[in-house]
């Protein structure tokens, strides 16, 4: 299992980044904390779309998504029960409420108790992208608002810093 072999490396890297955060404490723009990783999540959910950092949605949203995987935004994304349960637990533990993502708090505030399902149209994220013409998201190199990694190379790690975003042609 290659993903499992990678896990210690990821943890090491995460530890290194955490140290950096402490040293950078006085800076204005702290490097974002690393989004938690789970090989199963990356393998199953990440096969079709970015393995969105779990901190982008509240636990209730993840739970609702996992309960309706047979119609996942019009796609069949069914999982067997053990996989679904493992993902449910992990997503609950790492959801926006857990505060693993710096943006989580702002996202939670912007949704005001609703249960959003679509990350790409979260009010907070829409407002962050409102200066971009709609055409950008239709480019073949981007193709979807859900394709965060097209412009945010380290989206998987939860890095959505504007400085590091590069919009492809």
């Amino acid at each position, binding site marked *: 299992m290659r993903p499992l072999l990678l896990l210690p490396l990821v943890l090491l890297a995460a530890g290194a980044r955490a140290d950096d955060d402490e040293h950078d404490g006085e800076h204005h723009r702290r490097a974002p904390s690393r989004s938690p990783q789970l090989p199963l999540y990356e393998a199953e959910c*990440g*096969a*079709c*779309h*970015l393995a969105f950092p779990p901190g982008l949605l509240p636990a209730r949203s993840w739970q609702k998504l996992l309960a309706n995987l*047979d119609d996942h*935004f*019009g*796609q*069949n*994304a*069914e999982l067997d029960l053990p996989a679904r349960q493992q993902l449910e637990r992990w997503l609950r533990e790492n959801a926006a409420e857990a505060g693993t993502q710096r943006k989580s708090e702002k996202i939670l505030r912007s949704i005001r108790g609703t249960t959003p399902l679509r990350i790409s149209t979260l009010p907070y994220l829409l407002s962050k992208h409102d200066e971009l013409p709609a055409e950008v998201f239709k480019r073949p190199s*981007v*193709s*979807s608002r*859900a*394709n965060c990694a*097209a412009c945010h190379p380290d989206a998987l790690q939860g890095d959505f810093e504007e400085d590091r975003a590069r919009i492809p042609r």
Partner: protein
Amino acid sequence: MQQSKVKVWDIAVRVFHWSLTLLILGAFLTSEEDGTVPTHAVLGLVIFGLLALRTLWGFFGTRHARFSDFVKSPREVLAYARAFVKGRPPAHLGHNPLGAVMVIALLGLLAVISVTGAVVWLGPEWEGPLWLSKDAAHAVKEVHEGAAEALPWLLVFHVGGVLLSSLLERQNLVRGMFTGFKRAPVVLLGVMLGAAAQAATPPALLEEYAAEARAQSPTFQRPDAARGKRLFLTEQAPRGERVSCASCHTADPRGMGRTPAGKIVEPLAPAANPRRFTDRKQADKWFDRNCKQVVGRLCTPEEKGDVLSFLLSL
């Protein structure tokens, strides 16, 4: 390949086989002398009865006893014969297609022998109740004797075929007809138990799908790349939106595709991506999801085999 024992021949098939063997031997030994003719006639009558029972069992019996399990089209028999001559016959749990030809030939010839024998016995030659002209009775007797002389030749080929198959399959098929058990490759065992066997290569997975398709439908011939290509490219709309496999994998599955969420899909054709179709569980998971998406239902083993056959042809 891992192997294990599977029950193939039920008790009726085995008792039929070996009692028929003994009865035929007895009939041969009692065929020449006038004094043993009554015994010969009784043995023939029992053989006829057994043939009738076996024929019924061929329609209503257990899986591998049924004609539908082993009688194949001439094309399939030829294909199997070619593979057999090359020394690499595909595995069959029950009778293989050539063995099935022998089964039918033996049953047919024995039916002819026992029926003509009965006519001769009941006819005028031994002053039985059945009235026949002398010429007709003689003709029937000629058929009876001619067929009886052909029987040993068929039996030589029958035993020769069993011994050759035993060598090629590296298992004692004669013992199998005593115990009822044959050794099955895991592929076939998986089909029997309905469990997913693990295929390590795309061609092995293709074989698994083909074996399952064969188990489901005796008329199934082999996976067809052209049929697979058609299925791959045909747009359907089970959820309203017109989609095909090519919607994400593109019409050339050797290249990259893209999901609706914009994520790159690695090439699907094994020639372009050696990791594809190397894990049965993964392959089935994606077939299940995507067939529901595109076709609106699960795909049959036949359809999976067709599509994989198309992808392997690229």
